[in-house]
């Protein structure tokens, strides 16, 4: 019963409320309660909701995830380094089961006025800074998970760049799930405010130590002012027993450039909702994505781009590799609103099905209310090109290696767009490591 599931989450809130971060801060307590009420009204989405038609969330409804407390267990160095980027100089904030872990985090020198903080510091130094943001997205339709995130918010990564600030080194937000024996939930919140003419590279990593079976419900908000230039990477490689729900909201100013990559490899069930508002002339967004899954994994990407002003651009490039009984969903909605002339929107979704039982539901959704626009979309679903396999075999490459190599090449079309070499390299190695004959295919790339 869905109502029962909703009640379970509401009851859990009642139990945990006094222990939630900032419970003593009146505005935050009120914001959390407001979000919970919103969730209580709306309930979980069902398969009857058009946006959730292909993604059953019953396991999330049925499981009683306990809110993760601060983990008493530390991390081993090796556990941490596995998720870091060798050779990348970066600022790193580590969160364990959603809670900021000071001892593992390293923050280098930042330009004057730049803030990179977590919730406790914000509440201490600037308690009102977040008050406008916490419940900003809970009114959206099908926002149950955004509302839950606001109600239960475990911790916050807060990044603010004043105008003209340029952060040279990327910021890495590393969210690690630990603890195999219980089902825990964490609700991270990421807030990025990039002023005019700023530049930022931001990486969100979601990883597990061991076979965790947690729920990660994360929400990212990015505001890019005029001419801000942001590269964003989300790398989700949680345990294949984990549940992952991600909401991202991007709002862009004039001539701003945002490029966001979603690399989804882990979790038994993962859903990424990405909503972009191009509400100023010349704003441009690029969304790249790669999902590579097998077994009984399910990954769903829902993107929604609103072109609200003239001369805005969007480009989406998503690729999927599916094995076993895996199932993926890609829904790319693009709305060109009246008056958003000279909009350019391009969407590509290509899928490689490596087994009979894998399934993809891909759907472009273009709504165009302006007449002078350039919009295109294309979705493909296919198997490996047997002519290419034969060509490689006719050059002495064995069949398994040929197939692996072509699979890698297909997926790398997304990874090769990642500009920081240490990030790209780690992901390429990760991908290679998952393929058969991984040692052999290294020779070709």
């Amino acid at each position, binding site marked *: 019963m869905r109502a029962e599931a909703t009640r379970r989450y509401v009851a859990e809130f009642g139990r945990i409320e006094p222990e939630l971060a900032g419970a003593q801060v009146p505005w935050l307590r009120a914001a959390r309660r407001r979000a919970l009420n919103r969730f209580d009204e709306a309930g979980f989405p069902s398969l009857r909701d058009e946006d959730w038609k292909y993604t059953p969330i019953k396991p999330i409804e049925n499981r009683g995830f306990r809110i993760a407390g601060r983990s008493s267990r530390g991390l081993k160095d090796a556990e941490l380094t596995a998720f870091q980027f060798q050779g990348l100089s970066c600022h790193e904030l580590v969160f364990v089961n959603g809670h900021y872990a000071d001892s593992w985090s390293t923050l280098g020198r930042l330009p004057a006025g730049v803030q990179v903080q977590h919730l406790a510091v914000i509440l201490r130094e600037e308690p009102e800074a977040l008050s406008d943001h916490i419940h900003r997205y809970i009114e959206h339709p099908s926002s149950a998970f955004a509302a839950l995130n606001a109600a239960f918010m475990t911790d916050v990564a807060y990044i603010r760049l004043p105008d003209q600030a340029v952060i040279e080194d990327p910021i890495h937000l590393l969210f690690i799930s630990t603890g195999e024996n219980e089902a825990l939930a964490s609700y991270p919140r990421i807030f990025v405010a990039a002023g005019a003419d700023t530049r930022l590279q931001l990486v969100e990593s979601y990883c597990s130590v061991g076979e965790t079976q947690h729920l990660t419900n994360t929400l990212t908000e990015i505001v890019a002012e005029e001419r801000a230039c942001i590269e964003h990477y989300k790398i989700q490689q949680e345990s294949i027993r984990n549940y992952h729900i991600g909401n991202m909201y991007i709002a862009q100013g004039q001539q701003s450039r945002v490029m966001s990559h979603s690399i989804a490899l882990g979790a038994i069930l993962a859903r990424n909702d990405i909503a972009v508002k191009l509400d100023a002339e010349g704003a441009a967004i690029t969304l790249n994505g790669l999902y590579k899954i097998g077994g009984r994994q399910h990954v769903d990407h829902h993107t929604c781009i609103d072109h609200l002003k003239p001369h805005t651009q969007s480009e989406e490039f998503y690729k999927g590799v599916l094995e076993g009984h895996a199932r993926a969903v890609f829904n790319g909605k693009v709305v060109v609103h009246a008056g958003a002339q000279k909009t350019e929107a391009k969407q590509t979704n290509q899928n490689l099905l490596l087994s009979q039982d894998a399934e993809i539901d891909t759907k472009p959704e273009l709504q165009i209310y302006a007449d002078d626009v350039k919009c295109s979309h294309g979705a493909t679903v296919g198997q490996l*090109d*047997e*002519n*290419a396999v*034969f*060509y*490689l*075999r*006719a*050059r*002495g*490459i*064995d*069949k398994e290696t040929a197939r692996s*190599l*072509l699979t*890698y*090449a*297909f997926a*790398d*079309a997304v990874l*090769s767009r990642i500009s920081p070499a240490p990030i790209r390299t780690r992901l390429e190695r990760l991908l290679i490591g998952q393929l058969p004959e991984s040692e052999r295919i290294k*020779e*070709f*790339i």
Partner: protein
Amino acid sequence: MLTIKNLYVRVEGQEILRGIDLEVASGEVHAIMGPNGSGKSTLTHVLAGHEGYEVTQGAVTYQGRDLLSMAPEERAREGIFLAFQYPVEIPGVNNVYLLKAALNAIRTHRGLAEVDAMEFLSLVKEKVKRVKMDEGLLSRAVNEGFSGGEKKRNEILQMTVLEPRLAILDETDSGLDIDALKSVAEGVNRLRHPDRAFILVTHYQRLLNYIIPDRVHVLVGGRIIKSGGRELALELEERGYDWVKQEAVAA
């Protein structure tokens, strides 16, 4: 080196080759000519091991071994090279790395040490010059965005580096301008050797002005209906295929 006996092949239920007999000895160059749809490409693909072709009868022996029981990669390692009529574009796979892996697959198979990156690069650069290929194409993805002529030169480069025992060229001359045609021919002529054989599949005799074949075979309707020396190619050029067909019917 290669003996084909009474070979019958089906593609998607349709019989394309109907009793091919062919004997190719070391050191020889054989040209196979024929009109479109006669089964020329099918023959090259069957020899290279394409799985889409069903052999219903007959046998092929290569260096004393049953060729048809070998996987395509094993044939390649045993020295069979097919220059494709339509070389496949493979985005994401580096052209020169593929070539190096191909060479090392053959060397390892023969019990030779692999060549290292430096050795290989100097080898390849020398051969690139010989086939008059743009060096920039080496670092690109395999055939991706190559022109028709560049793809064919790339095939000849691969052949030159891999030094096969039996090279099968499937209409490598089609669509080439005269300069490209000449460098393809030079590539073949330079590799001619008593231990090596060539099968040139071609639609026109033009290529045979530059590569002098030992034998010419006419393939029509899935059968070799006439064989002869070099002069047969010239006669075909002059008189077309109809007279050979009529001769065959009369016989």
